[in-house]
């Protein structure tokens, strides 16, 4: 009757790091498979950034009396493409919590920080793939296909990881799906408008430019804009956040985004680890 008690030595007592890697890998794989299966969601996720690029970009082009505004919008469009799947991970956490799936994972003998890391990497991968699909259309916005685009892709990995970590952090703090969606929408709109993605952040009055300076999205957009090849994404004058009157170095901008991801990840993992 107790045959199961005498099964081979417990395979679970291996080194912790190996277990963590395995956990991260399986959660990452789950997100990637789900991404691959749900083609409709992929298509939907690309529609709004493309509408943004084609409609808003074309409309503002005629307003500006020239061309090139689509190029200016392009970093923001990349950001929009990346954020949808990243935030979907947060939504799925809240959803999983309601449906009980989360408890199914929480009862596994693995470190919860590894669960969070796996989820974030999954969201980052999905986000990067969305970003890549938009990046392929760079020519539409007048951006030349040059090797720098690979650097942009690397930045997109970082940005979508950060987005996912923020979404996961929000998801572990907010229990109700309705609240989550309201909070995300409320937070995202001003963050996007004050990031320099839609209009240059240079000519803003003092308090708004202060808001730009503390907006993490502004650094992400600015870093993307500075890395994109050619001049299509740039406008004369200052477009991004300013530190004491001049633009911060690119590395500092990326470092800030990475630091934000790290903080969000650590806080989310700690909150996630708390038992009821």
């Amino acid at each position, binding site marked *: 009757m107790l*045959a199961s008690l005498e099964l081979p030595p417990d*395979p*679970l007592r291996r080194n912790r790091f190996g277990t963590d890697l395995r956990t991260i*890998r399986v959660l990452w794989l789950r997100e990637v498979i789900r991404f691959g299966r749900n083609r409709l969601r992929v298509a939907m996720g690309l529609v709004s950034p493309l509408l943004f690029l084609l409609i808003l970009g074309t409309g503002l082009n005629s307003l500006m009396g020239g061309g090139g505004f689509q190029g200016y919008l392009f970093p923001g469009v990349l950001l929009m493409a990346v954020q949808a799947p990243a935030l979907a991970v947060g939504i799925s956490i809240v959803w999983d919590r309601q449906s*009980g799936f989360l408890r199914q994972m929480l009862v596994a003998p693995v470190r919860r920080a590894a669960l969070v890391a796996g989820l974030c990497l999954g969201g980052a991968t999905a986000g990067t793939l969305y970003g890549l699909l938009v990046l392929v259309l760079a020519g539409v916005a007048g951006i030349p296909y040059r090797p720098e685009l690979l650097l942009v892709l690397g930045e997109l990995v970082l940005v979508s990881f950060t987005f996912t970590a923020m979404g996961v952090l929000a998801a572990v703090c907010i229990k109700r799906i309705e609240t989550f969606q309201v909070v995300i929408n409320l937070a995202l709109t001003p963050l996007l408008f004050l990031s320099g993605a839609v209009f240059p952040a240079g000519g803003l009055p003092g308090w708004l430019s202060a808001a730009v300076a503390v907006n993490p999205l502004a650094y992400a957009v600015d870093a993307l804009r500075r890395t994109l090849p050619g001049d299509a994404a740039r406008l004369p004058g200052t477009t991004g956040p300013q530190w004491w009157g001049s633009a911060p170095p690119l590395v500092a901008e990326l470092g800030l985004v990475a630091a934000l991801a790290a903080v969000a990840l650590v806080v989310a993992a700690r909150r996630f680890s708390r038992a*009821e």
Partner: protein
Amino acid sequence: MSEYAVVAEGLRKTYGERTAVKGLDLAVAPGQLFGFLGPNGAGKSTTIGMLCTLVRPTAGRAEVAGHDVLRAPAEVRRAIGLIFQESTVDLDLTAEENLRFHAELFGVPRRRARVAIAELLELVELTDRRRSPVGTFSGGMRRRLEIARGLLHTPRVLFLDEPTTGLDPQTRISIWAHLHRIRREQGVTVFLTTHHLEEAEHCDRIAILDAGESVVSGTPAELKAVIGADLITLRTGDDAAAVRALRDHFGLDADAGADGVRVRVTDGASFVPKLCAELAVPVHSVTVTAPALDDVFVHYTGRTIREAEDGPMALAATSGR
């Protein structure tokens, strides 16, 4: 290590003002099929949560598979399989992927996982659907998949919270057949909750929980023996005369109601011929009913399980989880 698969002493959980579980004592022997019976909101899910290390007890202690739930939660988690009330399969993935992912999370070596997955899919009769997305499965199939998943890492105790809720009667029967089979073939201790009294008959031992307290425990037969007597219901030409005759000839306390004359006796089957021989009034029909767990529940709580569910505790059920 204790000799029991599950032990709890004075286990207690309060949520603010509300006490979900008030000092619970439990002992489940290895290999047993243990049923935890009670109306919704009695504290069953909270108790399972505490035993599975998902809910922190306010007071008391518990050991599962010989490990303390507070001091060694990781060991407890490795030793248990858990099937929740709600369906927790990943709908976007196939049956096989669901199992494979679970095996990865629980650190089952890949080669062993491959064998175990094939065997368990066979056990729950889902082998031919292993490559279909779980989103296309019926409720009963999902539940079966969850049972397979719960067994994948060869747990010593399998917890099931309301495994048959929301399933149609036919599916319920098949789930029970599977539970008996896994208990037999895997030798695992099964700890489940239910609010269906008829299902508790399947268990080796049951404990009745009401308003956060265990009111009684024992085998279904033991509990029914407490009621002691079969219920005989008679339809006669003159109920009042029949009640009188039962009192005068047999010294039994019968009462006449809308559904006829009701009387309790220890051995109903052998009493009926004697009764018919003695009674002068015409008898139209006789029914002998063995005591059911429903009677046990009424005996200990003073109400039927349905009345208990309609009470204010029913509301607490959702917040308790």
